[in-house]
């Protein structure tokens, strides 16, 4: 499949590129001036793009099979540009998907929207997100809001919001377990979940899914992720 990955010079964007690069044909993009090396996780060149609401965004996504749009963790910016990027540019990308026939849109979000819940609670995808006002989480939450409304209204779209665990740990699931962090996500598990989110046949147009490594005492239940894309159990077999 031919896929676009945004914020490709960020750690999460680069991890996504590493995860998908072996099986898929990737187009990497990031904002102009962002990132030092100018190369993504696979070493591929990164196309600089504003993701504006002009025809160039349509051109960027035309012919793609899917988009992986990095929400939370894609950019370290002040509140104003970050809110603008994750609302307006998400809107622009989804509008371009509609204009060019791209069906699959995967938004990378964060499980930090559930930080307020007590740790003993069985937080699944059915629970209401309770974002705080810190700009990285609030902006990412608004980006997911945009995704949800496009999925609600446009039958041709298949939208997945992967609410990712934290911290992101390089390596295998065992590395995540060693951190003793209850919501840790290993890059190997990110790769599994991302590939499934891109390629699985989805039961619904709108699919908010919880993704962390199934470490001992895992903080979040992944009931819908298992049902929708087979992560983590089916994918691990």
């Amino acid at each position, binding site marked *: 499949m031919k896929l676009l990955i945004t914020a490709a010079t960020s750690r999460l964007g680069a991890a996504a590129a590493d995860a998908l690069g072996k099986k898929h044909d990737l187009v990497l993009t990031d904002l102009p001036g962002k990132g030092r090396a100018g190369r993504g996780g696979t070493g591929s060149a990164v196309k600089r793009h504003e993701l504006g609401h002009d025809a160039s965004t349509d051109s960027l996504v035309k012919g793609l099979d899917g988009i992986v749009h990095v929400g939370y963790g894609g950019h370290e910016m002040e509140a104003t540009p970050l809110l603008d990027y994750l609302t*307006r540019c998400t809107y622009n990308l989804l509008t371009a998907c509609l204009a060019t026939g791209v069906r699959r849109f995967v938004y990378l979000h964060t499980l930090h929207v559930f930080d307020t819940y007590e740790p003993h609670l069985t937080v699944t995808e059915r629970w209401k997100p309770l974002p705080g006002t810190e700009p990285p989480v609030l902006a990412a939450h608004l980006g997911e809001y945009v995704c949800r409304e496009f999925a609600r209204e446009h039958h041709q779209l298949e939208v997945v919001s992967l609410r990712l665990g934290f911290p992101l740990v390089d390596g295998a699931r065992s590395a995540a377990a060693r951190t003793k962090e209850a919501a840790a996500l290993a890059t190997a598990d990110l790769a599994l979940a991302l590939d499934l989110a891109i390629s699985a046949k989805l039961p619904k147009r709108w699919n908010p899914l919880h993704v962390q490594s199934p470490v001992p005492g895992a903080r979040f239940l992944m009931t819908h992720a298992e049902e929708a894309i087979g992560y983590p159990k089916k994918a691990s077999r």
Partner: protein
Amino acid sequence: MNVLVLGGNGMLGPWVVAALEGRHSLLVTDISDLKFKTTAEYRKVDAGNIRQVVAAAAGMDVVVNLSVLRHDRQLAFDVSTRGNYNMAVAAVTHGIRRLINTGPHFQLAGPNYEDHDHDLSPDMPPQPGSRLYALTKALGQEVLRVYSTRHDIYVQTLLFYNFYDPVTMRTPGGQQRIGVDLTPFSVAWQDAGEAVRLAVEIELGRLPSRCETYNVFTDLPHGKFSNSKARHQLGWQPRHFLEAAWTRR
């Protein structure tokens, strides 16, 4: 109370200012030159500029946001979404507890509701859909809702749609509707301004939560939406029923 009005030059601004003038000390702001007569202080402020909004909010007790931009995509996000973020940051910065937000009814009841259902209430979960105007305003409302969960801020959102001169039965676009029905979310300008005044003046302790939304339209027989919350909670009583539009000639 000291009241900051953002977007005061818009269609609703003069009616809100008329309802508040003489009762409160007003600072009316907009990005352009003042377009109507008022004794209130006036200042040019871009609602999309966080520094300007925070500066204008110093010493205020209430912020009323009437600003909206619908057509240009960048400006729509700047004003309709981040304008509310700027207002929330200003409230936290200056300890302002009362925020009044306004917007179109479809920022909550988008086509998914309106095309299918009746008795639509302002307490439904928002389903704005993906149209630029509706979604950018809904995102702004979501920002305020989130802020109200984490800070001592009371947010009241007043939803409107069509405004009428009750004498001529004309809309701002000059369209006259007599005996041909109207959008069942319509209100006379004067009644709209009065609803904002009531939201400014209601005791915060009487509000059931820190985030309340009202459908503001006159009593209409369609049964499409419900305005009972505005009537009962704010004590709003529309004086113009626009019946010339919805009764057959």
